């Protein structure tokens, strides 16, 4: 421990702490901008400066380590004036359109301006005048708003190992740009949206589809149907002023009815269906000597990654569409028929924790119903905005249940939202199918948790199945390199592009901290535990769809509607 004095108070803090960490420990707030709790120290914004006795110059609290006897002052007039000037200079380059900005109310720069009492900026406004990048269906970039903190670059390179972003030029002319200064769509970007969470301001954000949704609701002839991904419920609460996981599912369903959805169904239904299709695909590959290890295919950011960086391994990908796209193909065929609704009148909206899902829904392969299977994708954040726009008070809203035929689900589907969940759900079903025995303890805890790569071996009546689970693409890369080298010991690998799995998806409420992702994971397993049915193959509506429509897993109809194929993206610059 090191003894320091901070604003006149004596404190003892762990050796190696920065001034910022020491201040946090004693409850003193130091403003920051480029600092990110789960990233390396950048120290390029200087917003966090403090006085250290014996130093002529102010020190960056996020970078300067404490030493024995250090005397720190975090709020002297000199410090406050310096911070204010620094933020004023940043604002002098920043478009003053907070009112129209996607991050209005959730912007670190806005908060700084307020905390530092910035009123009349003495510096002349000089907006740099870059063009917006609207080249992808998932993300936009608005470089004029960039504060050059470089947090997006670290998210993209270190966490995701995608390296779609870098710096062009230097000094006052520096700018964060996609590879070779081109548009995002030409870069290796996989559209996971982790850069959105990393960005302190509105320089990167999701492409919103809110207007299309409102137009569909306004049209009396259109039947607006929705599906909700499993990771959405636990996080949507954060958008409406509740604690993570606090909004009960049925109240959420009613909220969706309030904003205009005619039918509320669940992606969890097709998550269960995915388990039957994918579980059987795995068994088939094991029995018939198909390509192994098999990779899960639910995460569209991961699919983009595999198509970009590992096109030689596309045969390892399960041919199963993601639950979103299975749902899309079925809602305009099976469900429309069952409900006696003209599929051309259905507007299918999916509510996702993800921005890559927007890209997935737009893929040309995703028209198997004869229509665009999923018309638009709204992120958890967009739904939060729609709830706030409608002024719904969720504390008073009564519950309402899901609609039928594609609304029932099990605990196995719920856990799709967390890293390891698809694997666990698959094991619950595959175990029973292979052994014919009832699985007494359905909890495969070895594949749960926030560790980057998890492994397990499962004994299926003498058949040893080795599985691995990875979240974040830098971890996926490790497993992929092993497969490429022919050294992978696994049969089945689950990959989720985002940290923590879908709970940490690019469309979730803005969060910098992995700790928040871990809270959401906990909420997911609580929900699973409370479910009466926890194995996908016991979902009654899944049984019905096989009896009446699909007939068997991997059957003819399944191939037509529920399976897909992948393409080498032939990206020029990696």
């Amino acid at each position, binding site marked *: 421990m090191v003894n320091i004095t901070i604003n006149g108070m004596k404190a003892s803090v762990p050796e190696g702490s920065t001034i910022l960490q020491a201040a946090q420990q004693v409850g003193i707030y130091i403003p920051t901008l480029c600092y990110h709790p789960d990233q390396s120290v950048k120290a390029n914004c200087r917003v966090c400066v403090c006085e250290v006795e014996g130093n002529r110059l102010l020190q960056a609290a996020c970078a300067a380590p404490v030493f024995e006897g250090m005397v720190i002052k975090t709020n002297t007039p000199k410090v406050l004036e310096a911070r204010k000037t620094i933020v004023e200079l940043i604002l002098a380059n920043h478009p003053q359109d907070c009112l129209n900005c996607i991050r209005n109310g959730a912007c670190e720069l806005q908060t700084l301006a307020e905390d530092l009492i910035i009123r009349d900026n003495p510096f002349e406004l000089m907006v740099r005048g870059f063009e917006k990048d609207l080249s992808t269906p998932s993300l936009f970039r608005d470089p004029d708003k960039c504060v050059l903190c470089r947090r997006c670059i670290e998210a993209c390179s270190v966490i995701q190992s995608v390296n779609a972003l870098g710096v062009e030029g230097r000094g006052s002319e520096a700018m964060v740009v996609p590879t*070779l200064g081109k548009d995002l769509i030409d870069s290796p970007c996989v559209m996971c949206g982790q850069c959105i969470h990393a960005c302190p301001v509105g320089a990167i954000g999701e492409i919103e589809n809110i207007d299309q949704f409102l137009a569909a609701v306004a049209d009396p002839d259109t039947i607006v149907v929705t599906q909700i991904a499993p990771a959405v419920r636990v996080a949507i609460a954060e958008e409406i002023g509740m604690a993570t996981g606090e909004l009960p599912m049925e109240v959420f369903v009613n909220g969706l009815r309030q904003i205009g959805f005619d039918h509320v169904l669940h992606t969890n239904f097709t998550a269960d269906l995915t388990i039957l299709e994918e579980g059987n695909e795995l068994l088939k590959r094991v029995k018939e000597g198909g390509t192994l290890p098999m990779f899960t295919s639910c995460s569209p950011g991961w699919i983009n990654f595999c198509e970009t960086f590992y096109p030689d391994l596309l045969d390892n990908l399960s041919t199963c569409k993601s639950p979103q796209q299975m749902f899309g193909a079925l809602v305009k065929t099976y469900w429309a028929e069952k409900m006696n609704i003209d599929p051309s009148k259905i507007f299918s909206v999916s509510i996702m924790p993800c921005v890559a899902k927007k890209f997935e829904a737009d893929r040309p392969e995703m028209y198997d119903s004869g229509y665009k299977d999923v018309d638009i994708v709204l992120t958890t954040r967009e739904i939060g905005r729609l709830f706030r726009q409608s002024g719904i008070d969720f504390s008073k809203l009564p519950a309402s249940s899901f609609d039928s035929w594609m609304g029932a689900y099990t605990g196995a589907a719920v856990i799709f939202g967390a890293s390891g969940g698809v694997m666990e759900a698959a094991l619950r079903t595959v175990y029973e199918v292979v052994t014919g025995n009832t699985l007494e303890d359905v909890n495969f805890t070895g594949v749960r948790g926030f560790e980057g790569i998890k492994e397990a071996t499962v004994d299926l009546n003498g058949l040893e199945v080795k599985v691995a689970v990875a979240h974040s693409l830098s971890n996926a890369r490790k497993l992929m390199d092993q497969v490429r080298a022919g050294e992978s010991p696994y049969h089945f690998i689950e990959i989720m592009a985002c940290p923590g799995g879908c709970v940490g998806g690019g469309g979730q409420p803005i969060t910098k901290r992995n700790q928040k992702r871990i809270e959401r994971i906990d909420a997911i397993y609580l929900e699973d535990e409370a479910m009466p049915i926890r194995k996908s193959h016991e979902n009654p509506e899944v049984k019905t769809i096989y009896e009446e429509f699909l007939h068997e897993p991997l059957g003819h109809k399944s191939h037509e509607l529920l399976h897909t194929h992948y393409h080498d993206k032939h990206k020029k610059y990696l």
Partner: protein
Amino acid sequence: MDYKGIIAKYKDVSGGIIEAFHAVQKELSYLPEEVIVEAAKIFNIPVAEAYGVATFYSYFSVEPRGKNIIRICESAPCHIAGAADVVAALERELGIMMGETTADGKFTLEYTECVGQCQATPVITVNGKPYAGVSPAQVSAILAEYK
């Protein structure tokens, strides 16, 4: 031009990408996209990072330029000594504006910061060779050396 061969020569040099870029630029006057992509491959870094290196240093250009790069110092001493008149003479003589390249691809005009030759101002450099105390009248003679 065998830019691949040139880049490969620096493969095992530490920080070799900068030297490789200099060597290629000496031949091509600028760093085309293929060069950056190839360098990323050889030095095993992402293209986004190699592009960062190529745009960080003002002596590299990722835009096509002429065979001969003429740089005029725009720092204070040269400015006071009448750099603007030299600029005007160069622009007139070559028929292009600052930042442009002649149609025959022979000359590009660029500004530079102080080149450390303030003993006799204004200063211009052609392909890195300094000409100190340049007057507008000398411009044609200097250009003739490179025509």
